[in-house]
Every structure is written in C-alpha cells, then in structure tokens.
C-alpha cells in the first residue's frame, strides 16, 4: 500500500482544513465573535423570510421614474426633451387607486399597443406619478404590496458610480475601507453563512460587493445552466472522478498568500453548491411559468419571465407583433437571471438572492416615454409584476408573503437635463420595495411628508447645490427596517450590519436631523 486511498486522505485532510478555516477566520477582526453572538439572537434565516434584490446600476433618474408631477419645477424648461407629459386637469391631485392603463387586444384600437399610454400614471397619492412604462406596477401597487420610496440617498452623497455603488453595497457611506457587503453581514449574523452551503446568491457576471466578505463565501452564478464540471473522458464516470478530485483538492493546505483564503472559500462554495443546483431547471425549457389571469386586456395569460420573443407579453398572440411586448428584446438576459434568482429562493434554502440591471447612466438621449430610460422602466415594472405572480402561484420555499423584493441604485440624476437630452450624476433617487407583507404606498414624495417635498424652483428638486434632488430618506433606513422587521435581525445585530444604526445621531431609525450633514430625514417609514 504505497498510496493512501482518496477517502482516507479526504478524512485526514478534512480535519486539517477545519483547523485551517478556523485560523483564517481568527485573523479577521471580529467575525468569530459575531458568529457566536448570532447564535444567541435574532431570527435571520430561521423565520422563513427571504429577500430578492435588484441593483439598478448606473444611477437611476428618480425624477422620471417616480415623477413629482404636481411640483411646478417638474417642467419643460428644466427637462425640455425628456419631460413625462401629464394628463390635463386636476387629475393627479385626486387621491384613489393607481391607474392601470389597460390595452386592447383589438389591433385597430388606439390603445392596442402595450405601452400606448404615454403620460404620467396617477398613483393616487395626490402628488406623485409613475413613468408610463411602469404600468405593470399598478396591479402590485393596488394590491397594497408595493412601496414607492422617493428622495432616497445618504449623507455627503458621492456622484462617482464606483464609490457610490460601494457605499450602497457596503452599507457605510463614504467608507471605502469596509470591504464586505451589507447583505453579507446580514447572513453572517444569521449564523448560517459558511455552514449552510447556500445563504446568499447572485446571478450576474460577478459576485457583487453587497454579498462579498472574507469570512464566508456567498455564491454567484454566471450561467446557472452550465453549473457542472467536465471530466476526461466527459462521461458520467469521468465527470464524477474529476469532481471528486476537485473536492479532495479543496482540502489541500496551503501556505498563506494574499487571496488564498478567499480563493479557498470560493472553491469550497463551488463544490458545496454543485449538487444543489443540479435539480433546478434553469434552462429556458424549464421556463413555463405563466400568469394566472389574462392581464392587460389580452386573450391569454402571459409568460412571467420574458426570456425570448415568444415569451414576451402578447407577441405570439398577435401574429408576432412587437407592439405587444411587455419588455424590450434586450431584456432577456436580465429576465433569465431574475428567473434563476427567483427559482433559487423558491427551491433552495438561500435567504437572499439577487441580480443587477445596468444601463441607467443616461447621459445621452435618455428618452421621455420611449427610448433608453423607458425601456428600463418596462423591465422594472414587469419584473415586479412577474415576481409577485410567480411567488403567489408557485411559492414553495419562498412565498410572496415571506418575500421582499427591493431595488437599489447608486444615485439619481440632475434635475435639469444636459445638452445631450440626458442627465448627469446627482443625488437622491427612488427605490421600490414589494412583497406580500409590505405596507404599500408612496413614501417621500408628498408635500405633507414629515420632511415635506418643497415645490418650485427653490424646492426639493434643487435642494442640493441648486442642482440636485435632496434626500429625505436614507437608503440604510429602508434596508435596515427590512433586515430587522422582515429578515429578523435584532436591533443590536442591525447596529453591526449597518454601522450607522449604532450612531443615534444619524437618526436612521427614528428620523430627525442627520448629525453628519444637518439634513432632516424621515427615518424608517414602517414599510413592513
């Protein structure tokens, strides 16, 4: 017996690896303590609640998304090429339901096209309106399950994409040092990260900072339909042999180098998750999920996840008519990723999953009711509609009542358009929060808010440097409330997940005047 068999070596190395991992953790400042504390408190991961995030990268123009239609500063002088037109009369000031401009199935009707309606959609809060391409938000909103948050930002807002994305993701404004993400820390506090193979998952090109950290590996899938290995020969047996060899190699010890602990965590996460995803139908053939009603005046239920033309709204119902698309054809990869994130939350024990949607950096030809920004609005609107229906009708390990969907974006855009019919980097923007337990409505976009929306050329839209929309809600208050009230963190855990919560002067919980820049903020809005 010259050689040790694989099983024996594995057992032997397995032991070694545990020691190694323990040591690696101990080199971090306080992760082991955090993990110990987590075992003693909180409900994250134990209460069945889940969260799905969509990061809208590039800086979303909040003013053309959730339109302050009753603010006189929202006008054609400030936004000559990109203004969202209003309906005439006192239409928007009357409270009530959100309008859902339904289309007709009759090609000769003037409202035949899915996005025939080209004016701001009344939300019924008496002040705010939605971009017409967000029409599919209306059913979610009217079910009381959509919260529209406006004027969301943070103190001393950075207008750099990269810095601002870092701050949104690490949960610590103006801190470039903190290298782990807000949802990563949430999952560390659950006590499950590093023990359960799957806690946080992203479906995009690379693991985002929001899920990144050095103590435990979160999972990113670039293409979930290809999540397996190839042996030589590429047969069932050959593949197993290759996979076993890789699993064994995870346990090889190594001298310390920068990045080696990080690589080891990710390798282990790969081999831990290989078997889990094998049973989930990620391929497009498995995309059979359809609406349970004929929506938007059409004759058959639409597919929920438009991943190709045939599954895109009423396209095939009307002789392949692109007028009946619910999203543009460039949206398919986003919906493929969104579907995978939804399936993972629904079919596995993952607690947080998400993806991203790019293209919001609309410096140039942003578009009013058609074009670049409107196409993105269509994606958001349909995504929320589809996620709600998917989880209501197919809920398994995640149900609509146990789920929150949240969008994030690093900043808003200039109140006045630039010379290219676009908008540049600015400050506060809008967030959407949806879920069966959400207290729906519009927050932060009304003159009667605790921090009032001031109208006119000297109002909120020019509240910073006479150029930018001033924040009234800190994004950390929104995420903080969700992490505590929904995911089940205790208040003290929240202080560790979002450091600003531990500083009463920031007023993230109660609202008040931020000690960092003297700006009044609303605090938590009781969104759930």
């Amino acid at each position: 017996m010259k050689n040790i068999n694989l099983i024996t070596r594995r057992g032997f190395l397995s032991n070694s690896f545990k020691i190694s991992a323990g040591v690696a953790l101990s080199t971090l400042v306080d992760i082991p303590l955090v993990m110990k504390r987590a075992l003693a408190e909180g409900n994250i991961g134990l209460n069945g609640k889940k969260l799905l995030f969509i990061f809208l990268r590039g800086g979303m123009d909040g003013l053309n998304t959730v339109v302050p239609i009753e603010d006189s500063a929202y006008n054609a002088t400030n936004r000559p090429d990109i203004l969202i037109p209003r309906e005439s009369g006192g239409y928007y000031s009357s409270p009530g339901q959100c309008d859902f401009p339904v289309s007709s199935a009759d090609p000769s009707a003037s409202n035949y096209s899915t996005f025939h309606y080209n004016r701001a959609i009344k939300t019924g809060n008496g002040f705010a309106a939605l971009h017409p391409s967000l029409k599919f938000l209306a059913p979610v909103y009217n079910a009381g399950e959509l919260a529209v948050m406006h004027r969301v930002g943070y103190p001393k807002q950075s207008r750099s994409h990269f810095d601002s994305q870092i701050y949104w993701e690490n949960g610590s404004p103006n801190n470039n040092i903190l290298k782990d993400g807000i949802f990563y820390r949430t999952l560390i506090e659950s006590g499950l990260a590093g023990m359960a193979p799957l806690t946080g998952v992203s479906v995009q090109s690379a693991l985002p900072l929001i899920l990144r950290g050095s103590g435990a590996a979160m999972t990113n899938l670039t293409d979930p339909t290809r999540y397996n290995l190839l042996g030589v020969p590429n047969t069932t047996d050959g593949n197993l042999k290759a996979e076993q060899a890789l699993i064994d190699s995870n346990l090889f010890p190594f001298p310390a180098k920068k990045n080696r602990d990080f690589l080891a965590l990710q390798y282990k996460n790969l081999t831990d998750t290989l078997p889990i995803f094998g049973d989930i139908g990620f391929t497009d053939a498995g995309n059979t999920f359809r609406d349970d009603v004929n929506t938007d005046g059409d004759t058959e239920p639409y597919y929920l996840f438009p991943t190709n033309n045939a599954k895109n709204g009423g396209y095939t119902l009307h002789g392949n008519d692109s007028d009946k698309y619910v999203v543009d054809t460039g949206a398919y990869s986003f919906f493929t990723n969104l579907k995978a994130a939804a399936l993972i939350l629904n079919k596995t024990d993952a607690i947080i999953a998400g993806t991203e949607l790019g293209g919001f950096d609309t410096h140039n030809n942003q578009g009013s009711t058609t074009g670049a920004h409107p196409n993105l609005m269509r994606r958001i609107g349909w995504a929320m509609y589809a996620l709600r229906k998917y989880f209501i009708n197919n809920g398994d390990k995640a149900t609509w009542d146990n789920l929150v969907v949240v969008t994030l974006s690093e900043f808003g855009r200039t109140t006045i358009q630039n010379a290219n019919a676009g908008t540049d980097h600015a400050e506060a923007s809008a967030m959407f929060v949806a879920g069966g337990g959400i207290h729906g409505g519009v927050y932060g976009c009304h003159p009667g808010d605790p921090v009032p929306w001031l109208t006119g050329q000297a109002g909120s839209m020019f509240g910073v440097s006479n150029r930018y929309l001033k924040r009234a809600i800190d994004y950390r208050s929104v995420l903080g409330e969700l992490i505590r009230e929904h995911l089940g963190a205790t208040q003290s855990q929240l202080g560790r997940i979002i450091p600003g919560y531990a500083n009463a002067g920031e007023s993230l919980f109660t609202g008040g005047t931020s000690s960092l820049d003297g700006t009044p903020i609303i605090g938590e809005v009781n969104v759930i």
Partner: protein
Amino acid sequence: MKKFILFGWMLLVGLIPAITDAQVITNFNSSGQQKGIRFPLDAAIKSYDVLSTTNLNQPFTLNPSFVYAPFYDTNTVSVSAGEIILDNLAGTSSGSWTAATSSNDKYGSNYRYKVQGTGVAYFDFRPTISFAGEYDVYTWHPAGSNRTAGAPHVITHAGGSSTVYVNQKVNGGVWNLLGRFNFAAGTTGYVRITDTFADAGQLVMADAIRFASVIPIDVETHPIAGYEWRATQTAPQSFYKIAVTPLSGDEALTATVLNRLAYGQTPDELERILTGPNPIGPEAYIQEQLNFELLLEDVAGSHTNFGIIGPRFAGPTDVVDYTFAQTYTTNTNTLVVTTNNVHSSTNAAIADFRAWHVLRAVGAKRQLLEVLLQFWENHFVTQYSKSFTYFGRFYNGDSGVRENRLATQAEYLEIDRWRTALLNPQCTFYDLLKISVESPAMIIYLDTVDSRGDRSNVPNENYARELLELFTVGVDNGYDQNDLTLLSRAWTGWRVEIVDPANAFNPFAPRTTVNLPSATNNFTAVSNLFGVWAFNYKSQFHYTNTPTTLFSNKFVPARFGPYYASKTYGTNSVPGLYSLTMPIRQGTNGIQDGYDVIRHLADLPFTQEYISVKLCRLFVHDEFTHGYDFADGTWTPEKELVWQCMAAWEAGSPKGQIRAVVSTIFNSPLFRSQEAAGQKVKTPLEFTVSAIRALRSSTNGTFSAGTFTADTEGYALNTPLSRMGGMLLFDRGDPDGYPEGAPGWISAGTLNERIRFVQSLCIAPGQFGHSGGQSGTGNDAGNSTSNPVELMKSRLLSDADRRNATKVVNFFLGILYPGEGAGNLELYRQAGVQFLNTSDLGDPSLFNVLTVSSVANNVYDNRVRGMVAMLMSMQRFQEQ
C-alpha cells in the same frame, strides 16, 4: 518495509509564526513526553528529501543542514497506531455500577453493569487524545438476553455530542462501531454510557471503548511539508534524516516574472530561463522585456490567422467600407479605386480584433508590451458597443456591419497608437494620455461627442469626471465637484467627423464632400460619404462665456512631503499651487484648453501617485491604494514602493516615463521576494491565455504555425472570457475598466467556468466536452486545443518514464507550478499519481501497464489529460 506511523498532524498555517526551516519541537504536550519535527509549508523550501534512516539516541541535536523525522518500525508498532483502548478499569463512574467477570465475551478481565435508572448514573471512558483528528469509536460489550436493546452511548466530540444506542443482547465480544467523530487534543472528548435505557428490568453493560485514528499514514507517500511529525519518548524510535533544499532565488523569481511580465510560463520559456541547458536566468529575462523593442517579434508566424486578420485592419487614413473588396485613395478630389487583393472582402470586425489581440498575448515574444497594452487599454477604457451605437446614427441598412467595422477600427487605432508609443523607450504617461484624449472611441464613449458649451448649454460632465477620477489623479484626489463641472467646459467641441483621408490628422477639417462610387442617390447622407472618421474640433460648440480656473487656490497637500509642496506647477509662481486657468479662446484656439488640461494633469503628484498605485497593483499585489501620507515618516513596503515609483516618474526627462516606473517595480523587494509570488489572481484573460501557454511547446523548435502542443486560433477565447465574468475585450461598459483584483472575478459561478475551460482544453478535440456533449456544455474551449501527452513525450524520452506515474506527474507539476517548492506540491503530486492509477469508475487501475498513446479517447491519453486537467483545476492555477 519500514513505515512511518504518523500519530498526529496539525496544519501550521497561521498556527505558528512563519518559519523558514524545519524545527525540532519538544514538550508539545503537557507531560513533556514527546518530541517531533515541524515542517513548514513555505514557498522558500523547494523540497524535503529522505536521505537515510539513522538510529539516533535521544536527545538528538539538530544538524542545521538536515532535519529529522521520527519513525517507528512496523515490527514494533502496528498500523492501527493512534488507537487508544480504554477498558472499564480506566473508566470513571457515577452511581452504583457492579463489576463482573462471568461473561466469556468480555474485553480484558472484567466489565461493569447497572440496572435501569434516570441517567444520573453513568460510566465514562475518557481518553487522552494527543493529536486532534478523526477517530472511529467502537464499543465492546458482553452480550446476553437480559441486556438492554438500547444502551445509550453519548459521545462528546469536537463537534458537539451524539448519542448512539447499542443493542447489547447481540454482537457481544467484538468491537462495534459507534461512528466516526472528530476529537480535539486533550481530554475534552469522551464516551459516556448511561442507565436511561427504555426496557425495564434489563441491564446495561460498560466494558471497553476503543478510539482508532482513521489514518494510518504511509510515510513514503505522505507529504512532509505542513505537518508536525511526533514521537513519544516511551516508544522505541528512530529518525529519518531529511535534507531541506531551499528554493533558489532564481526559481521563485522566474515564476513571478513569467506570471507578471508575461501571460504565464511556457515549457519552452521555462527551459530557456531556468531549467534547460545554459539558462539565461530571470534577470536577463527582465532586461529583455524591459527593452522589448530590441526583441525580434515573430509572433505573426505563430498562427495563420495573423496573415488573414492583420491586413484587414484599417489604418487612420484607410476608408472603412465593407461593401467593396477595394481600397480607396483620393487624388485632388478624384476618387481612385484600386482592387487590393491583399485585403479580404471586409475590414476587421470586433471578433477579428479580439482574436488578433489574444493571439498576440499567447504567442508574442514581447510579452511585457502585450501586458502593458492590455493594462493601458483597460485603464483608458472605451467601449466598442458605444461606438457601434454612435455610428448607427449614420449607417443603417447594413445590418450593423459597417458600424462594427468602424467601431472596431476606433478600438484598433488606440492599441496601434499605444503600441507605437510604448516602443519608444522614453514613452511617457502624457504620451499615452494624449492618445486616449484624441481617440474617437473615447470622445464617443464618455459623451464628449455631443457635449456643448455654447450659449446656455450645460456641458456633459461624463468625460471630465472620469478623466479625473479614473484616468489621471484618482477619485477624490486633489479635485472637487466644482473642478469637475468646470473641467467639462474644456472638452466642448471635441467631436468626431468623417473627413477626407488626407485630413485624418487635421482636427479642423470639414466634413468630406466626396461620395462613394456606390452612392447613386441621396448624396447628402453621411453613409454615402467617402472618408475616414477622425477626431474633429467644432469651435462653434466650445464654451467661451467666461475664463475658467480649475483647482482654484488648491495646493498640493502636505502628505506629499516638502518636495512636491515646494515645487511650482504649470504657470503658477506660488509653490504648491496647482490651479490652471483656461482663458476665453475663440475659434480653433479653443482646442488648446483640452491640451492645456492634460499637460497639467499628466505630471501632478496626484496622477503620479494614482498611476503608480495601479501599476503596483498590476505587477505586485492588490493591496495598494492612493492617499498615502508620504510625510509621516513611517513606511510600509507598499507606500515606499509607490514613493519610489513617483521618484522615478519625477526624475525622468521627460517626466513620467513608463519604463522607468515599471523598472522600479521590478527592482523592488516587494516584487522580488519569494513572498511576492502567487499573491495575485489571474483575470479571465490571464487565466485562459496562461492555460494555453502552460501546455504550449513548439514540437519542432521553430515556433511556426501548427507546431504547438497547445494552441488557439484566437476567436475561441471570446466566449469563455464572457462566461468568466463578462470580460468582453474592448467592450467594457463601465469606465473603471475590468477589475485587477480577485474579488471582482472570483465566485463559485466564475470558478465553475474557469475550471470547465481548462477541463475542456484538456479534452481531446472532437471528444465530448471539447466539442459538444454533456448537457449545457456546448463548446467550452472550442478551437483552443492541447495535447499534453505529446508535450510530455517530448521531454520524457523513454517508454518506462512515460509509464511512471510519479515522473509523469512531476513533469507536469514542473511546468504548471514553476518556482513552487516541491514540498508544497506534495499533495498535488499524490493526487496526480492517484488519479493516474485510478480508473474512471474510481477503482485501482495501474498506470504503468497502459500503453503510451496520444490517440484521442485512448485510456492512456484520457488518464494523462484528466490528470493535467485536475492539476490545472487547482486553486493555485488561479494565482499568478
């Protein structure tokens, strides 16, 4: 057969401070009875080799040249070493347990029993575990009909406690397995038998417990590095005498140099530098690469695609038009059409350019030039698809073909100009910046092309922001939002235009008025014009309202130290003041604003710092950041290196010579130390190219097309790069460029794609997994191929060697992990040998009886290919 019996092991990583040699350790348990050797995992040690066995009397002294490992003779210690048997005599009890001897199937001389109870009574077997690890735990009981069918055995182990119920009516007189548990060293683990069983009127037995270490180690194949070997003084023992061979500086440096100055090692380069006859050594290689313009670049001969793609690139004065297999020239407004047989029917498209670019990375002699080009291309990032969209304003009906050609040309011209600039040994940062600023691709990418500053127009801030934040001084480094807004005025009027080819370098030229011969109607449409798209300045859009002062009243901060604080900058006479005023400039004079700005920015200390930091991240490791306090007197190696780079930048005439800065890095201890090796993680481009290069040897020594044991036609890397995290060359969406650091690239999903790529690369062409096959596979490596058996055969010449698993594995370890101490690769070696000796089904299958063959799907070929794929799937192949 002599055997080491390993009693325990412990990973040394992090447990103890780094040590550079094996150490004898004593008194490592509380009783002071034991003695052993610590073998560090250390990149500085090349190998531990067993020299001889020596019976040494204790205490032994350490000869500094050698280290010693204890071993036991198999005659005196059984292979089940690590076994601890506790008879009930060694146990402790609570409650009234009765000793008895009558059962014949007892262990030892007696046993204990007790009647049913509440669990207050128990019998404990508590071993002293010397070495943490996994143990199989067994129990022994005398069986009988009056015993409980569920004797509770509570095992307290490192992972908590577990209860196993044992039927004591049967299976007496043998060891019954309770399970495999992990125990910490010491006495915290134990087995407790309690009296809380369910069947009333029965008895529970407590006789003996056995803890058997599950790993008897065969010392001749067991790795030494990274473990402690221990012996107890009470046992008869001897020692192996072991030689420690340090890794030579050249070996470690060669690996670093080939990973950083080049896209990884090739077997041929390794031999030329290090392992072959008359090696030149890594120093000579560094000098070769630092003077790359002197190297003969014969990459064009290494693949036939160079001959196909190269002629299709359109130069700055070449008209891009896909509709004719012709080139055009103008002669005083008369169009001369010449059929050009060298050109293929189309100009290069983006896929061609990408293939050409990666083919150079794979095969170029001037590796450092290719590395630097990729760095600057990624630093001054532009986006193919943004240009594509822009040209779409003028061309439609071409199915995007002409937009593709034009956008590709815009990207190609940047690389072409940077290449020319870098070939000058005195090339400066300013030279490279100027190329970027004037590039149509950049003017389009960050929206300058539509920016206006005339009348009441608000200039687009996009380019001004990224010019400061990403391309020169670095984020929040010496500017504020106001500077950025003001700076956006400088670029108003910078546009692109289609001009007569003769005017390609005249930014004031009007739009061409010559029509294409194909234009039979609509002569006013831009799509019908004959000309080249070039940088063009439109003075009517330039901001001329007021004079603009950038960095007004801003001084170089004290953190840069007195030298930079006391210098004057630009036309300022006040030391440290670095403001820049752009006067009102009318007409074409307005173009000067932009040039003034880049001349000013190029050598500011902020820029020197930020660019040096980025180059250090490229060549050393990820953990450099701008914002160092150079004045505070404490120096980390990182801060010091950045400072030295800035000194090299400042000392040159002209300032900012790229070669001077990178030469400073290559000469630094941070770069040269053995610790520096393997600190970085490969980007997808580096990973795929290095995988091909690692197996790429010229079979006839000519480096000519078709003679390599691993190759690619270039195009095949596009899809894998996309899958590994969206690394679309020349098409980065965000202006920060693709990440250099590991976190931006590494996650389970991208690792899956990386591993699949090397696995597919190792599968023979035509076989499943290389070309189609398994569900969801497609064509991972595509037209990237390797033939590891042919490569190995070119170095292992005898049939016996080729069937010797250890030699085969050692050969591949040598070319895949040069500069890595053999001790550190011991587990890789074992895994490789094991793999070669295992069938696909996982059964033992001797490698040395296979017939050597490189025929696809032959058992031998598959074995070797699979083993190489496994070695390349390992974590360390991700590192550079």
